[in-house]
């Protein structure tokens, strides 16, 4: 698929973002609690990603915000006004769905005009605004086509234009890229980020892809079992995860047995600072990132003997898994020119970066 560079001409003035607040939002499905008192504040124009594994409640939170799901308690405020009992069509939101949601009986331009038509915008104006929105997503020449004549990426671009053309206060994106192939996904996510930044619209982006979340969001909320485990900038989440779940979910980690001694984690004799809440002395599993491990020589301080277990070429770098003396496996990212063979002996060194750890049974 050829992606043309979008021409951004759409006015930002009335599409400026709103403050969005979720306060103690609870949603139950029978005996299962999908959202357990969620609190979240989004500043105007902020791009927030809800990240978590399947079933963690991220889509439910988004749907509660859109009004497609009712909530059992709590409040949802948009610009300070509680909209928890306001129907979806009156919340002034735009939404892009995971599955292709273009109306199949309408042309692309008719799809984009739909929201304006429902708002009784005069025909000439809505045609002009729809054309402008399509140009914004780089599909100005595709107005006469039908949805089935577009690729998946193009359909999601049209869905984005359709969601934005009404200049909503909040844009909700429910895994809009998950059905696309990897290359288009990366291109489109960057385009979404640029457009939302240009329009200054408050955006909530649901994804289970941590790389996607870290790449586009101003802040990321990591969710588990209906709760927000941590919310912060991508850098904060990566560098200072509050618990092992966040450390494990955000970025790649190796689970290596260690020991908490006097507030530090000792792994193969190397003392590492402990992230998060202080823990009592005792055995733990330390979560070590690949970039905190380096290849070393035998005489280096704290060198750990290891043997190559597996090695993968990743393009710009190589990731190799080493078997440690205790049987655990640790991943290391290193120069692509070092190409170890399976079974090769090597020495590793742990950098003194803070690590998350969870008690070991």
């Amino acid at each position, binding site marked *: 698929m050829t992606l043309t560079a979008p021409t951004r001409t759409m006015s930002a003035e009335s599409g400026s973002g709103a403050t969005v607040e979720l306060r103690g939002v609870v949603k139950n499905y029978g005996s299962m609690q999908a959202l357990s008192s969620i609190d979240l504040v989004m500043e105007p124009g902020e791009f927030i990603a809800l990240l978590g594994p399947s079933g963690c409640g991220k889509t439910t939170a988004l749907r509660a915000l859109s009004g497609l799901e009712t909530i059992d308690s709590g409040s949802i405020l948009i610009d300070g006004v509680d909209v928890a009992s306001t129907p979806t069509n009156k919340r002034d939101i735009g939404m892009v769905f995971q599955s292709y949601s273009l*109306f199949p009986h309408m042309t692309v331009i008719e799809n984009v005009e739909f929201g304006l038509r429902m708002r009784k915008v005069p025909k000439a104006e809505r045609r002009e605004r729809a054309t402008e929105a399509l140009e914004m997503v780089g599909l100005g020449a595709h107005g006469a086509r039908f949805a089935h004549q577009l690729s998946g990426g193009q359909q999601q671009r049209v*869905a984005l234009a359709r969601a934005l053309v009404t200049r909503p206060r909040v844009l909700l994106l429910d895994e809009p890229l998950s059905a696309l192939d990897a290359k288009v996904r990366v291109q489109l996510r960057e385009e979404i980020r640029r457009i939302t930044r240009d329009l200054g619209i408050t955006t909530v982006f649901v994804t289970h892809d941590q790389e996607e979340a870290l790449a586009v969001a101003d802040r990321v909320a990591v969710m588990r079992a209906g709760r927000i485990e941590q919310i912060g900038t991508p850098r904060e989440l990566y560098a200072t995860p509050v618990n092992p779940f966040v450390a494990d979910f955000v970025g790649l980690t190796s689970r290596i047995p260690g020991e908490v001694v006097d507030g530090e984690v000792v792994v193969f004799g190397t003392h590492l600072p402990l992230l998060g809440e202080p823990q009592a002395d005792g055995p733990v599993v330390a979560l070590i990132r690949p970039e905190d491990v380096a290849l070393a020589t035998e005489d280096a301080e704290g060198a750990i003997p290891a043997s190559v277990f597996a090695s993968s070429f990743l393009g710009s770098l190589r990731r190799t898994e080493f078997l440690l003396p205790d049987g655990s496996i640790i991943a290391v990212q290193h120069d692509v020119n070092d190409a170890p063979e399976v079974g090769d002996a090597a020495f590793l060194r742990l950098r003194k970066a803070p690590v998350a750890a969870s008690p070991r049974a």
Partner: protein
Amino acid sequence: MKPSNLTRWIILGIVGVVFAFPIFAMIEFTFRDGLSGGHTLDHWTGLFTEDAARTYRNLFTGIGNSLLLAVVTVGIVLIVLLPTMILVHLQFPRLKRVLEFICIIPITVPAIVLVVGLAPVYSVVVQVAGGSIWTLAFAYGITVLPYAYRAIQANLDAVDMITLSEAGRTLNANWGRILWHVLLPNLKRGVLAASFISVAVVLGEFTIASLLNRVNLQTALLQIGSSDPYVAIIFALLALLFAFVLLLSIGRIGQARRTGSDS
């Protein structure tokens, strides 16, 4: 393994002959000249004489009644069944099986049994709504349920109506506008199929009308068949042709949609 083209044509040919033979026999019969053994156009041309309206008054009444019943029955399908199915599909998916079961029941109940149950019901219907022929459409609304349900449900399952309706809601449309602008255009095929099948079923219905002492196309054909079998067969043929055109139209709608999708 797919059957070869030859096998397909043989099967189609045999089935075609089985169906076509009695139809050709009926056509041939309408041209017979009494017991003389010759053929004539008199039975056909006789329909257009000045006396025809008087002679076949009961038959024309039956045709009028059947057409009225077809319209009211389609109305019942569109006003009662269609919104119910959309509501269940979008809002109460757990009730889908129950609705399906209810809609399939009439196909398992013989018409004669249905009439036994309907007779006391109609004694009340007559008191409330009068004895007009259109009230028979309440019974027909039940008999067409299995066919109309399948046609609409197939369409509901083929299009992601839930996402489309949710997209409509996020684009400021209320439920009425979603139904009109989003759902119905995408249910056109199923709705038309359900309507045409309902019309075909109503035009062919005899048992209920006969046992409830109402005049429709089929009861009128039986009645006229005893005095003028040629005209009875002519109108039976025309009714068959009408039903055939309706069913072909359903096929054309489906074909048009597939062609559009492939373009």
